[in-house]
């Protein structure tokens, strides 16, 4: 497979996942707002500012808007063209990547991503978002799931599919860690006691952002307990949005790409993903809290970046023209 194609598939997987996660976060926050409306600007700001913080887009946001309101944040995260991480921008880039590998992916995949992009670029999308934003984000998440389903059902599960998986899982693990980190930060500034109605609802919202509330209920009856939520979202071995599950999928796909068995590694990316996999297999939630949840999640995000870098070096380094040839070409 061409290195450029592998790279585009990887980014296609990432951007679709990133767009979907943005839609999830907004959806859940909009619903939360319905429960905690007291009409004050402070409440609204407290509710929406962290979203921008977790996406690490504060600077750009501040340059474009003054206030953190549902409207400004949703606009920024959904349609803002200048925001490279807005749903619109992610989709535009996903589509551009899909276009460059148009001959590789299935027509069904292309049409799904193209339709979704054309919709996001239309006045109808703004209309729908204005009329019923919750439905709008739901619909968006559904469309993204359709894309994943179509991909699984129509694309050969070969090398290219695995590059898509790598992109998807890397992005998803990253997003889950950010969602968790975000709420942890607000609610437990120093790991102190928790409880009370507000906290429970907020932690339920965290689970909902990851479509995890129902799954969580199945393994943990009763009160939603913060440390259990964290354990579930980081360490559950078979919930498809838990970090451990994502890293396992990532590691499996990396090994399938090279053909190396999973007990060994044949390149740096596999070594790093394998190590992270083992860490998550054997770490306990107590150890994580002792280490500091925020610090731990931060470390995971860094390790994900390292894996992405190593993978690029292994498979796509070719893409940069060789220095000697470059000077000749000039």
């Amino acid at each position, binding site marked *: *497979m*061409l*290195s*450029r*194609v*592998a790279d585009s598939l990887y980014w296609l997987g990432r951007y679709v996942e990133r767009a979907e996660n943005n839609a999830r976060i907004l959806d859940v926050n909009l619903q939360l707002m319905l429960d905690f409306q007291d009409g004050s600007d402070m409440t609204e700001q407290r509710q929406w500012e962290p979203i921008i913080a977790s996406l690490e887009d504060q600077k750009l946001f501040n340059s474009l808007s003054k206030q953190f309101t549902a409207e400004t944040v949703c606009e920024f995260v959904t349609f803002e063209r200048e925001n490279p991480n807005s749903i619109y921008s992610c989709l*535009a880039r996903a589509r*551009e990547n899909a*276009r*460059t590998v*148009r*001959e590789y992916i299935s*027509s069904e995949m*292309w*049409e799904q991503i*193209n*339709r979704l992009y*054309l919709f996001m*670029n239309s006045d109808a999308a703004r209309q729908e978002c204005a009329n019923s934003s919750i439905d709008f984000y739901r619909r968006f998440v559904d469309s993204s799931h359709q894309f994943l389903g179509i991909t699984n059902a129509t694309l050969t599960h070969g*090398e290219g599919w695995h590059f898509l998986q790598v992109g998807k899982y890397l992005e998803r693990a990253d997003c889950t860690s950010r969602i968790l980190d975000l709420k942890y930060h607000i609610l437990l500034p120093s790991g102190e006691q928790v409880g009370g109605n507000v906290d429970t609802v907020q932690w339920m919202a965290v689970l909902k952002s990851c479509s995890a509330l129902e799954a969580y209920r199945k393994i943990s009856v009763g009160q939603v307990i913060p440390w259990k939520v964290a354990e579930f979202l980081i360490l559950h071995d078979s919930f498809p949005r838990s970090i451990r599950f994502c890293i396992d999928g990532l590691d499996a796909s990396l090994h399938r*790409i090279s053909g190396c068995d999973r007990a060994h590694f044949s390149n740096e990316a596999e070594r790093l993903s394998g190590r992270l996999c083992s860490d998550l297999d054997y770490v306990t939630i107590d150890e994580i809290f002792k280490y500091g949840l925020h610090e731990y999640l931060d470390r995971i995000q860094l390790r994900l970046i390292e894996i992405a870098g190593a993978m690029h070096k292994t*498979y*796509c380094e*070719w*893409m940069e*023209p*060789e220095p000697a*040839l470059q000077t*000749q*070409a000039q």
Partner: protein
Amino acid sequence: MNQSNAFFSNYEVGEFYDEMFEAPGVIRSHYRKLFERFSEMGLDEFERKRALVDNTLLNQGVTFTVYSDNKGTERIFPFDLIPRIIPAKEWDHVERGLTQRIIALNLFLHDIYHEQRIVKEKIVPEEVVRSAVHFRPEFMGFNVPKDIYIHICGTDLIRDRDGNYLVLEDNGRCPSGVSYVLENRQVMKRVFPKLFARHSVRPIDDYAQELLNLLRYVAPDGNPDPTVVLLTPGIYNSAYYEHSFLARSMGIEIVVGQDLVVKNDCVYMKTTKGLKKVDVIYRRIDDDFLDPLVFRKDSMLGVPGIVNAYRKGNVNLANAIGTGVADDKVMYYFVPQMIKFYLGEEPILPNVPTYLTMFDDDRKYVLDHIPELVIKSANESGGYGMLIGPHATHEQHEKFRDAILKNPRNYVAQPVVQLSRAPAFCDGTIEGRHIDLRPYILYGEKITIIPGGLTRVALRKGSLVVNSSQGGGSKETWVVDEN
């Protein structure tokens, strides 16, 4: 014949050759079934189907970007749903003519890059060859695999007032548009299945397979299992959709310049498993941009060293380098003579009458008749560098007069041909619009011509310009066996 058909009742045949009507109300026999089907349907149903088709094409991304607004609006290449029908007998004539022409053009290219007999025998003036912009003297004496230069050709045909097919242009470099032909057929089958059941339309689906066979056939050293790729300028090229469509249909890799690298005079593509040798390149990049080491130094699209690899015989390119010398508009004038010279035959498809301003008599005539003529510069395409005398101002006439006097080699002139018309759907009614035809010819182990080809239609009323940039659209083209 029933003439009170809402669909065609207001149709005006006009002073042109009409593809569907012999005379007002008189339908040509090969169009009869189509006429009946459309009569049953009515304009409402037609309009519904049209909306469906437009939406399908948009979702499939069969679009070009409108650069004039910055919202990234994309438009489809307008597709007119009333097919253009060519009866088998007529097509056989066209096919024989095109076959004869491509053979002669290939013999000419071999000759011009070797002995130049045609120049020595004074059929083509030496000056014309020497001054042709796309002539590549550095390839003199170079032997291309299987001696084929133009592998893929898209010859533009038009019909005059009497319905004669004339050759307007030979596109022997990188002709585009075939994907529209193939996509349009798919769409038509979906929207008008019954129509196909009633006609025996010659199938076109094997184009991609034939193209792949041809590309494999011309591999260097007769390699039986060559790696074939399609080289594209990239996703921002207006024909990118077509490039990816063809690569997908053939199951080959589509590459951009940066995917390829030349080592030891061999071309490799950069894959996740290392470098992989490439044997045949279907390149959709003009000669000029192919190799910054040899041609344009500023080309970011090409592959440094690729020309040397080609020259060493380690990779083959389709079409060959230097075929542009044969689709120079001045050289076009000599194609009928080439056919006589190389094949000893009379041309089956004539040229449009052409004047060369480099000849004294022709120049005198042209300068005296500028307002009546179409004047074209020799090496431009896509409707650029062209003057349509009757539609132009006095000022423009004078500008071309000066240009011709300054550089007589660079211009040709032709009388205005009133292209044939066919019914097209325009703003809620059916009206006659001018059309042309671009059949696609593949020259490999054998010569294959896609039955029909791309019919382009000038959707603006009265317009003779069929280019998509100037309000042109396309039509399905059917070659129908009459029974």
